C-alpha cells in the first residue's frame, strides 16, 4: 500500500477480534428454524394473555356451535306471565319483556353475534388491507384513485348506507327473507361500509415501511413487487390493522344490533345479542338485567378478541420476545 493512506494507517492494522470475541459467549438454545408465523406461534404458546383469550374464544365458539348443550330452555318460548322477572334459580338471567328466558337467549344468540362479528371483521379487514397495501406500495395514481374510491364509502353515514343497501336488496321480499340470506347481507353491508378504515390504516403503515431500507435492499436483490409486498411490507405493517380489527369486532357486533333495531338486520326467530340489547332499551330502569346479560357476553367476547389481537401483535414483533 502507498503512503497516501496516512490518515488511516493506524486504523487499518488488522485489529481482528474486538467484535468477534463477544459472539458465541452467550449460551444459546438450540431451536429449530421456523418462519415468521412458526416463530410467532412458538412465542404465543407461552403468553398467559394468549392462553386466557384462546380459552375464552374456544368456549364462545363451542357455545355458538352447540347452544343446546348449555341451555335447555327454548329461546323463543314466551311466558308473558313471567315478563321482566328478575334472575332466579329457575331462570338464571331472568326473563325479558315477552317472558323469554334470557339465559337461553344469550346462549342461542352467541352464534349469530359471533358469526356477524367475525365475518364482517374478516371481510372489512382483508379487503381494506389488500387495497391499502396496493395503494400504499405503488403510490401515485393507483393510490389516489384507490383512496378516492375508499372515500366514497367513508363518506356514507353508516346507518344511511346500510338502510340503502339492505332495503334495496330485500325490496321485493315479503316477510322474513331467511336467516342465512340476512346474515350474509348484514356481513357484506358492514364489510363494504367499514373497509376504508382498515384500508387507511394499512395504507399509511405500508407507506412507512416501503421507505425503509430493507425494501430498497430487497429490490436491489431482485425481489418482485409481490414478494416485496407480502414478505417485507405486510409483516411490518400488520400490527396497527390487527389492533383495529380487534376493536372493530366488538363494534360490528354492536352495529348488527343497530341494524336489527331498525328492522333491517337479523330478526326473530333469530336471536342475537344485538337484538337483545336493542330490546332492552325501553326497560333499562324497570328490568336492567335485560341489558346486563347480553351486554356482558358482548363485552367478554370483545375482550377475548382484543386480548388475542394484542398477543398476536406482540408475538409478530420479534423485538418483543
Amino acid at each position: 500500500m502507498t503512503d497516501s493512506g496516512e490518515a488511516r494507517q493506524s486504523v487499518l492494522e488488522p485489529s481482528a477480534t474486538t467484535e468477534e470475541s463477544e459472539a458465541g459467549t452467550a449460551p444459546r438454545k438450540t431451536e429449530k428454524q421456523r418462519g415468521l408465523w412458526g416463530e410467532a406461534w412458538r412465542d404465543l404458546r407461552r403468553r398467559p394473555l394468549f392462553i386466557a383469550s384462546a380459552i375464552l374464544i374456544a368456549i364462545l365458539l363451542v357455545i355458538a356451535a352447540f347452544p343446546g348443550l348449555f341451555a335447555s330452555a327454548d329461546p323463543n318460548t314466551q311466558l308473558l306471565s313471567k315478563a321482566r322477572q328478575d334472575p332466579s334459580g329457575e331462570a338464571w338471567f331472568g326473563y325479558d319483556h315477552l317472558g323469554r328466558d334470557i339465559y337461553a337467549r344469550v346462549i342461542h344468540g352467541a352464534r349469530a353475534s359471533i358469526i356477524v362479528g367475525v365475518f364482517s371483521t374478516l371481510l372489512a379487514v382483508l379487503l381494506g388491507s389488500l387495497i391499502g397495501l396496493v395503494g400504499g406500495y405503488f403510490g401515485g395514481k393507483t393510490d389516489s384513485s384507490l383512496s378516492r374510491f375508499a372515500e366514497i364509502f367513508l363518506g356514507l353515514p353508516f346507518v344511511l348506507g346500510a338502510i340503502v343497501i339492505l332495503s334495496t336488496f330485500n325490496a321485493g321480499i315479503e316477510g322474513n327473507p331467511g336467516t342465512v340470506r340476512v346474515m350474509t347481507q348484514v356481513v357484506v353491508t358492514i364489510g363494504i361500509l367499514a373497509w376504508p378504515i382498515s384500508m387507511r390504516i394499512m395504507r399509511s403503515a405500508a407507506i412507512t415501511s416501503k421507505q425503509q431500507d430493507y425494501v430498497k435492499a430487497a429490490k436491489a436483490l431482485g425481489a418482485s413487487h409481490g414478494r416485496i409486498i407480502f414478505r417485507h411490507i405486510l409483516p411490518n405493517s400488520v400490527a396497527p390493522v390487527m389492533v383495529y380489527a380487534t376493536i372493530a369486532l366488538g363494534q360490528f357486533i354492536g352495529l348488527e344490533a343497530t341494524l336489527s333495531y331498525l328492522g333491517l338486520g337479523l330478526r326473530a326467530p333469530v336471536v342475537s345479542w344485538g337484538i337483545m340489547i336493542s330490546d332492552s332499551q325501553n326497560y333499562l330502569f324497570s328490568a336492567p338485567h335485560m341489558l346486563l346479560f347480553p351486554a356482558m357476553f358482548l363485552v367478554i367476547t370483545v375482550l377475548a378478541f382484543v386480548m388475542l389481537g394484542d398477543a398476536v401483535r406482540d408475538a409478530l414483533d420479534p423485538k418483543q420476545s
Partner: protein
Amino acid sequence: MSTKDEKAGGSPESRLLEVDDLHVEFRSREETAHVLNGVSYHVDAGETLAVLGESGSGKSVTAQTVMGILDTPPGHVTGGSIRYRGEEMLSATEQRRRELRGENTAMIFQDALSALNPVFTVGFQIAEQFRFRRGMSRKDAMAKAVEMLDMVQIPNAGQRVKEFPHQFSGGMRQRAMIAMSLALDPDLLIADEPTTALDVTVQAQIMDLLDELRRERDMGLVLITHDLGVVAEVADRIVVMYAGRIMEQADAHSLYSQPGHPYTEGLMESIPRLDMKGHELASIKGLPPNPSDTPPGCPFHPRCHRAEDECREKRPELHDLGAGRLSACHFAEELISRD
C-alpha cells in the same frame, strides 16, 4: 498499487459496468433539481472503484440508478446510458433488470439494521435468495445461509443464523448484509457507504472483508463513501463527485499525492492529521450548490480558493490529463505539475 485505468486498457465491451453521461432529475411540483449532470465512470472485473463526495453530490443516486432502484417519481433518468457487460440497462425491461439484480449486481447499504427486515431471522433472509432464486429446499437453503455467514466471518454461524437482525451488533449486521447480497454470487457489488455507521475498528474489518471477497471472487466493487480514509487502502481508482458531476478521476496513489482538482485538494486538507496538531483544521468554506439552482461556470467556483473570472463563466469539461487521470478544472495541469 495497480492502475488499471489506462485509457487503452480493456475495450468497452469487456467492461463490467459502464456509466456514460448519466443525467437524473428530481422533479417536484415547484422545481426540477438536476441531481446528476453527466456522470460517467466504469468498473472492470476485480477492480475497486471508489466514488467520493459530500452528502448530496449524487453518489448514491448514481448507484441507485445503476441498480434500477431509484424511486421514480420523483427521480427521472433524462439521459445517458448504463451498460452492464455491454448490455444497455436503461432500456432493458423491468423483468430483465430484476433477473440481473442479486444474480449479477448487488448492493449493500449504509445502515444494515434498517436494510435487514426486522421480522425475519438473518438466516431466513439469506436463505430466501437460495429458495426463490435457486429453488432450493428450506433445509438446503438454510445450510447455504450458514455457509454464507461463515464466509463473512461471523463466528458461530450455525447459531447466529437463527437470530434476528436486532440481536446482531453493528459490524455483524453489515457482515450479514454482505452475505445476503453475495448469496447469488454477483460479479458487481455496489457498497453505499458500508462503513459509515460503524466505529473505526469495525470499519477497518469490514473494508478488509470486502476487499478480500472482491479478490476471491474477482468481483467489481463500487465503493461509495465520503470518507477519504476508508478508500485509501482498498481503492484502485477514485472518482470524485460534486454537484452531480465528476470532478476528478485518478488512481488512488496519484489522487492522494497530487490532487488534480481544488475540490479534491480541499477534501484532503480537511482530514485531521496528527502532525498538524494545534493548527486549525482546514475546511471547504460554504455549502454545495442547490441542485435546482447550480451556479454558471464551474459548479465549485463559489467555494474555490483559486477561482478566476474564467471559472465563473465557462464550465470546465472533464479532460484527460494523461495516465488515466481526468479532471474538470481549468487549472488541472497546473495543479498536478506542482512539486
